[in-house]
């Protein structure tokens, strides 16, 4: 049976998670984008700008991103990933 973690293990895991959370970055693959704009619909900090003519989005203001993951979850084309830069 799997050992349950101790309080200290949970604390260190939490700190590690928080450290990871700080370095997570949006990786956008514009060639997969079909202009559904769900990312634009759900982003709470205004990182996405729809291009109505080309029917794609542009990723802007990466510094505002809070890594909430909403755009990743709602993109039907898997065109957005949230990962550590050198992963």
């Amino acid at each position, binding site marked *: 049976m799997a050992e*349950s973690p101790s309080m200290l293990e*949970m604390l260190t895991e*939490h*700190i590690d998670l928080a450290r990871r959370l700080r370095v997570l970055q949006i990786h956008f693959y514009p060639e997969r984008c079909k202009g559904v704009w769900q990312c634009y619909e*759900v982003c709470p900090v205004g990182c996405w700008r729809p291009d109505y003519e080309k029917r794609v989005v542009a990723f802007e203001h990466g510094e505002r991103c*809070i890594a909430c993951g*909403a755009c990743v979850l709602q993109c039907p084309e898997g065109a957005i990933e949230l990962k550590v830069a050198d992963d």
Partner: protein
Amino acid sequence: MATVFMKWLETQPEKYDRGIQLLTLGKLHKLQDRLVGLLVRPGMRVLEIGCGTGALTVAIAAKGAEVVGIDLDSGMLAQAENRLAASGLYKNVVLEHVDAALIAERFKPNSFDLIVSSLAFSEMSRDTQAYVLSACHSLLAPGGRLAILDEMSPHGWTARFAVAMVHIPLRFITWMLTRTTTNPLRDFQGTLERAGFRADVIERTLLGSLCLFLAEPKLDDGSQPLPVSFKGRLRYRMSLRTLLVDLWAVFFRIIPPYPKMQPGLYSIGQPTPDSPVLVTGNFELTVRRLVKAIDHHLHVWLLVVDSSGINVWCAAGGGFLTAERIIGALSTSRLDEVVNHRALILPQLCANGVDGWLIRKQTKWGVHWGPVRAADLPAYIQAGRKKTEDMRQVRFPLRDRLEMLAATMGFYAMLILIPVALLWPSSFWPLLAAMLGLSLFYAITLPWLPGIDGLAKSLPLGLIALAGMLLYSWFVHSTALADIFNRVVGLTGLSVFVGAELQGMSPRMRGEQANWGWEAIIAVLLGLAYWLIPRLMGWR
């Protein structure tokens, strides 16, 4: 810190078994054994609703039946997997992560000879109970039976009091471990009858607070439709209760249990079948603020989904408000019979955890992401579900910053100020004043303090505080150097603490826990300085 502790408790599902066994005085397992002995035969097809850690599941499989166990809690399911692997009975058992409200969609009619459930119905809302029972009706093969073992609210004042003594700790433990509260069933026999079952209590124990029901479908029944479960119209009202809840929420909202609403379908104003449908979580404050913002402006249907009493953003991020929960609520509320359109408006901030495409694919309802703030809903709907740039963005205005300050301070007052008041009463007022002053200053100046995270922002905060203190100490109220030194240490420590901890309250920063290591190092260094320097200087 508090959140980590709660999280840690949640990862201990095996304690749930021990806790429940302790608090039902071992009677639960006796009744489960009795259920298995009486009803389970080899080769039977059994569905267990809410299998939890799998104790009953394995016992049923051990009698040679084929069991499907479903549960919504993945931690519990993992524990059940472990138990199953240890028993070697995995050929007879399938464990699935399915919401009880969706069993009619998941399984074919007539596919079970026995449906069992232990302590699961008491965790469902009344709507869900009725809905799941009607689904059981169709899932049972001819001659099939339903056995439900659960907590009951007993008859009589003395029995109720005696049971409360057992029940209150049970509620607490269950909440700590699973974030669910149990509501002992009332008139469950009636609920079973209304769902088309003939039911009897075949075992009862602990003064009738734990009962085993055996039910079989009535033959002439099965097609009786459930009434649409409408919970009523919500109006914005102030009462002594709401005042007390609000007062609690101002200071202690991060301490559970959170005030919550009964999930289900409500109305705001007088909606028609064409009116919009809004979805939200069941944190009472969320619902009340929503009602306050739109009552008298809009006539809408409001589907309150069980988010374990947590606000939508946190609940979605933490896995408490999910697409599955919303799909379940759509089924149990029978919303499709109430309105003649198929458009749901979800709060934009639940998009980090609610998979919109899953809802669209599984239910044929359309998902529209509403504005961030409830106050923008009237304008959003009047514009034909169009959001302006401003409606999409989370802000952290002064009012919110002060609100968050009160909530953080409420929690730390308990943690720090109460012990200080008891052990070092002379330091209480200076400490309170310093904490309040610093955090107030921080909350007001947050947007202009340099740096992007709390720890960095605590540096200018600390420098300003120290400068103020030094000026005061030298020019206004001259003090001995030793005392000034103590204040320097205290203020530096507090500034770091306030800056770093209040960061967790901001919606626009991330990963504040990453600073805990630095906070610990700074605390140790300050402690060392506090101990060493006065000795070197000969002050003490």
